[in-house]
Each structure stands twice: as C-alpha cells, then as structure tokens.
C-alpha cells in the first residue's frame, strides 16, 4: 500500500529525516513513537506531501507521489489526515465541514454527501452537533468531527498526527475509541502518538524513530517487552 525508500528531508543544513525505508501493507495499523524532535511528524507529513521530501521516493499504491508528474491533489483525496490542532473550518458548520470536500472535489450530490455525513457523525457520536459551529465544540468533539471530515472522502489510508496531544486528559479516551474502531474496521493507518497504552493495544506495528532514523519496526509485544536498541530501551524507561 505504501512504500518508502531512502526518504530524507532537510531544512537548510539541518537533516530531519536521514534516509527512511519501509513499507505498510493494506489494513496495517502503524503507531509511530519516539522522542520529540525525532522526525515523527515530518515523516508522516511527507506521506501526503505536506512536507516535500529532499530525496527518496514514496509510492502510494502504484502511484509515485514524489514524481514531478504526480497528480498530488488526486492522490491526497485517497489519504485522510487528522491534525493535532484539528484545523476545522471555523466559518462552516460541522455538517458543512464534512460535506465540503466530497461535494466540491468529488462532485457528490449535496443530499448524498449529507446522508453520508450524518452516518459518520452518528458513528463518532456527534449527530446532534451537525448544525453547530466548531467554536461551540469541546476539543474532543472537534477532533471527532475532524476524523469524520477525513473519512467522508472515503480514503484508503488515514494519517493521524498526534491526534490527542492538544486535548484535555478527560477527552483523550473518546477520540482514541473512535480511532480504535476505525483500526478494527481494517483501515490502513499511521498514527504519531505519545499514548503508549493505546499504541500497544491498537497497532499491528510500532515504528520507533530517533534522530531522523527508523530505529526499530516491530510488533507491539516485541517492542514493549523486548526492545532491541539501546535508544528504545532508554526511551521506554522514560515514558513507562
């Protein structure tokens, strides 16, 4: 589904990603963990070209995202992304936030988009907020709307960039539950997270990044019970 080869990214002289290669299978759920500044978010943002890689290739299905000829906008339609700070459109209602891209980009009819949006809102437990504006929602509710907004485009891959880091502690769970349901439904997902318990329960694979390198790629059981590298051991000591 996703194939990454020798991915590097530099800002000026500072190299943030130092040659990452990996591949993600269809339906695989990957939790990306590591110390802050390790390049987790940059790596994730390269996967839909919000950051343009300095070198290396990224294949989404059989399309090369990093090719100069790539139709980036249309590839992005198949990759949903959820941000730490939600980035809902503040001048639109919850329903409009969700239906905008399907109707404007995919050309789906208003009624069909609305029906689908209400279905998704019911799934994330916010059907009663359809006509509210984002400013009236709590952080947890905002993030669930943001997830529904991404899902409305019927993506094949979902990227989560620290989806619970900006939330008050009591709201973390409601968001993680939604993500977990999604993982169980067979969606291909990559999640940058600091929630170790969640990573262990929900992920098929753990990526441990440090200083721009993919240090370990293992099942949660292997990684959490038997980390291979010195850096992973030290990291786990600090967070667990």
């Amino acid at each position, binding site marked *: 589904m996703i194939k990454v080869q020798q991915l590097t990214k530099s800002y000026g002289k500072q190299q943030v990603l130092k040659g990452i290669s990996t591949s993600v299978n269809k339906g695989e759920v990957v939790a990306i963990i590591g110390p802050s500044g390790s390049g987790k978010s940059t790596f994730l943002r390269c996967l*839909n070209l*919000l950051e343009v890689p300095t070198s290396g290739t990224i294949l989404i299905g059989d399309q090369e995202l990093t090719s100069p000829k790539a139709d980036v*906008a*249309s*590839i*992005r*339609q198949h*990759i*949903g*992304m959820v*941000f730490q*700070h939600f*980035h*809902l*459109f*503040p*001048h*639109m209602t919850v329903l409009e936030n969700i239906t*905008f*891209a399907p109707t*404007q*980009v995919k050309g789906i009819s208003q009624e069909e988009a609305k029906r689908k949006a209400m279905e998704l809102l019911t799934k994330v437990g916010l059907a009663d907020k359809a006509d509210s*504006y*984002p*400013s009236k929602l709590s952080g947890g509710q905002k993030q669930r709307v*943001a997830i529904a*907004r*991404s899902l409305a*485009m019927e993506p094949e891959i979902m990227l989560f960039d620290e989806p619970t880091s900006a939330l008050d502690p009591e709201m973390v769970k409601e968001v993680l539950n939604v993500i977990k349901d999604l993982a169980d439904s067979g969606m291909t997902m990559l999640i940058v997270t600091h929630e170790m318990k969640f990573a262990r329960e929900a992920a098929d694979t753990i990526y441990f990044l440090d200083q721009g390198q993919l240090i370990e790629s293992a099942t949660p059981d292997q990684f959490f019970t038997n980390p291979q590298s010195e850096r992973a051991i030290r990291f786990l000591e600090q967070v667990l």
Partner: protein
Amino acid sequence: MNKQKLFYVPMIALVLLFALFSPMFSVYAQEAAETPKKTLIMGTSPDFPPYESVDAKNNGEIIGLDIDIAKTILSELGYELQIQSMDFSGLIAAMQTGRVDFVMSGMSATEERKKSVDFSDPYYFARNTIVSKADNNYETLESLEGLVVGAQLGSVQEAVANQVPNASEVRKLNKIADLILEINSNRIAAAIVEDAVAVEMTNANPSLVMNFLPADANDGGYAIAFPKGSPYVEEFNTVIADMKESGKLDELLQQWFPEPEPKKVDSVESSKALIDFSVLQGYVPYILKGVGVTLLFTLVSALLGLILGSILSLFKISGIKPLKWFATGYTSIFRGTPLLVQLTLIYYATPQLTGYDIPPLLAAGLAFGLNSAAYLSETIRAGIMAVDKGQQEAAMALGIPYRKMMISIIFPQALRNILPALVNECVALIKESSLVSIIGVADLMRRADIVRADTFRAFEALLLVAAIYYVLVLILTSLAHMLERRLRRGD
C-alpha cells in the same frame, strides 16, 4: 495548480463593468439610428448663469444664452446638438482630445487660448464690473490699490484683476460662489466679475454692490471655440453674422440678461442671513438624484477594487517572481501618484490611445477601482497571512484544489479579519467620489456646485450634501456591523 485561471477574473470584472453601463450605450445607439442628421457635441461648464446653467428646479436640463445661440446656429446649419457638461478647466482638453466638436461656455477669445484652439467671431462683449460689499463700494480699479482682489480662475477677469495697481494679491478661485464667500468673510476686498453674472450675484446677495468698469478695447469678446483646424468655423461665422444682422442675437441677449434694478421674477428670494435653507427650495430633488450616481459609482469602484486587489494580493503571496514584481510595482505606482492625476489621465488619454470614447462614469469607476485595488491588495494580503496555516494544510490534505481552497476557505476567513479595514476603504471611496465632478459626472458634489452657481449662495447646498454624505456613511457602517455579526456567528 490552477493559477492561470485566476487571470480570467479581471477580464470577467471588466465585462461586468461594461455590462453595467451597456444600457447607456444602447440609448446612444438608438438615438443615432433615429436621426440621420449629423450630431455635433458641444462642451460647456453649466455653472455660469445666465450663459449656461442647469435648470435644477425642473428637469435638470442645461439652459442659457450660449445654449440658445448654439441651438439657433446648429438648426440653421442642419446639425443635431448634443451637450456635454464638464468643468471649465477641462474644456480645452476635451476639444484637443476630440471629445467635443466645439465649446460655448462664456469663453473669451484671448490671445493665450488662440494658441491652442480656433475661435469664431465674437458673439458678445461683456463689460467687467467690480463687486464688493455695499459699505465699501469700490468704483474704479485705482480705488482697489493695495488690496486683495479676486477673480474666477481661467477667466478673462483674471487679467483685469492683474491691472489693479499694486494689488497685494490676486486670488483666483474656481467658482463664483467661492468669490461671494471670500467677499463676505472679508478675505478679498472685491471681485472682478462680468456684468451679467454680477447682476445675479448682487440680486441674490443684497449685501453686495456692483460697479461697471470702462469697456476694454483689447477684450476679444465671447466666442465659440473649436479644435485647431476644425472645418466648422466658417459655417458658424456665417450664421453668427446673419444673426447679428437680423437682430436675432439681440433678441436672445435681451431674453437672458436681467436688468440690474428690478429682479428677475423667478430669481431666488434674496436673504440677508448667512445661512438660509429656503434658498434650496426646488433644488432638493435635483441634488438627491446625485445619491444614486454616487452610490453606483462607489459600488462599481469598490467591487473592482476588491476583485483586482484580491488578485494582486494572490500575486504577492504567490512566490512567482514576475507576478510579485508586477503586483509590487502596481501598488507602488497607484499609491504613489495622486488619484486626481490618474482620473484625468484615464478619462482624457483613453480616447486618444484606444479610440474608445470612455464615458465619464466608467472612467471614474475604473480610476477609483484601480487606485483602491492598490490599497486593498495590501490589506487583503495581511488578512490572508493572518489565517492559520493549518487551514491551508487541512484543505490540501483533503485534496481541495488551490483555487477552491482560496475562494471558499481562506478568503472568507481573511475577509472576516479585514472587514473593518474594508469598511474604512468604502467610506473613503464614498467621500472621495466627490473628485469625479472634475470630469463632469453629476454626482452629489457636482450637483451641489451647480446649485451654488445657480443660487449665487455659498453655504446651503454644501451643508445639504455634507449631511447626505454623512447619512450614506452611517448607513454603510451599520450594514457593515450587521455583516460582521453574520460573519462572526462561527465564534
């Protein structure tokens, strides 16, 4: 990305602008089709009664001695007359640029003017007078020695005023009404004015008196002006000679020139008070008609400014060097030169460069729109920069194309940020719109000037339009408040 498509937007804006004005064009076209006779366009500045003034109390038609003479000559020669109203100072330029075929506007055939235009034989020799306060009563130029004297800018009387021995200053003002103001406030001792005008001045302002000066042998007299090398001079001269012979000219003169003693029957009730709004009786509907013109003009220029300004702001943030340079250069030029210069250039240079006779209102809308775009592009750019970068990323991640993202997601939020600044710009536009009177657009300010000329009263019409402008601005700001509340409903 779809950036090229953005280039269509200014074109669409221009088409819309033309569409707005197309009803006017079609009216002209019909007139032309129905009249096989050739039409000559006459330029005049209708603020000089009794030679030419706007019949503001009735239908707003331009009337006066000059108009009647022109009608007589043209019907004699078998032409149709079309009158184009504009500021006196723009008349010569209008002839040189071919906007008008001839000019009759109480214009004296001076040597100076003969360098740039051709004149017919004179049809009237005016006598000059000294107008002053009744308690001063200056009778000769010599009695004005050492004093400040006024005259209308660009008039022959300016030269006469210069003959005052040791005058401490000759003050030149645009309007007769301004001269009255200056006399009443003792800033000038007296004004040199021609007889017919002086009679009406003193009739409307009982505190003023007039004294005739001896006729000037060097005075070229009032004549019809033509562009250099115009083919019409000969024909006109023949008719003028006929009119002098047959007594037709004297007949018209008597019809239009009031006698100094008994007042004209329909002349305004004279009032000693400094401000007396009853002099505006009958003029109010005429002035109110200017509201529509001012609003239409403000709307067109604000829309054009907003659309062009948005495009320029996109150029500025685009990161494409030539576009950035263009937008920066544009802003620099339009912000760095006076609006009045831009307006004059667009109105007078467009017909010469393109052959398209741009209507005054369109020229004004264009000039103000282009100027306002320069200011707004900076405001909009700031508004866009203030929108959270995450909004753009969220839109990109959803696969929303650049143009849709800008129009539906970034602009509405930017607009909300800059709404107060936009309202400021609109308020400024409404008030600055008074500049368009320079090219003869009959907006509020122009109408006030015409009524001031008509009534020979200085303050009343000015105060009335000031009040109207104020009400317009009040309405605009409260509309903006409502809009702002609507835009902020998301908060």
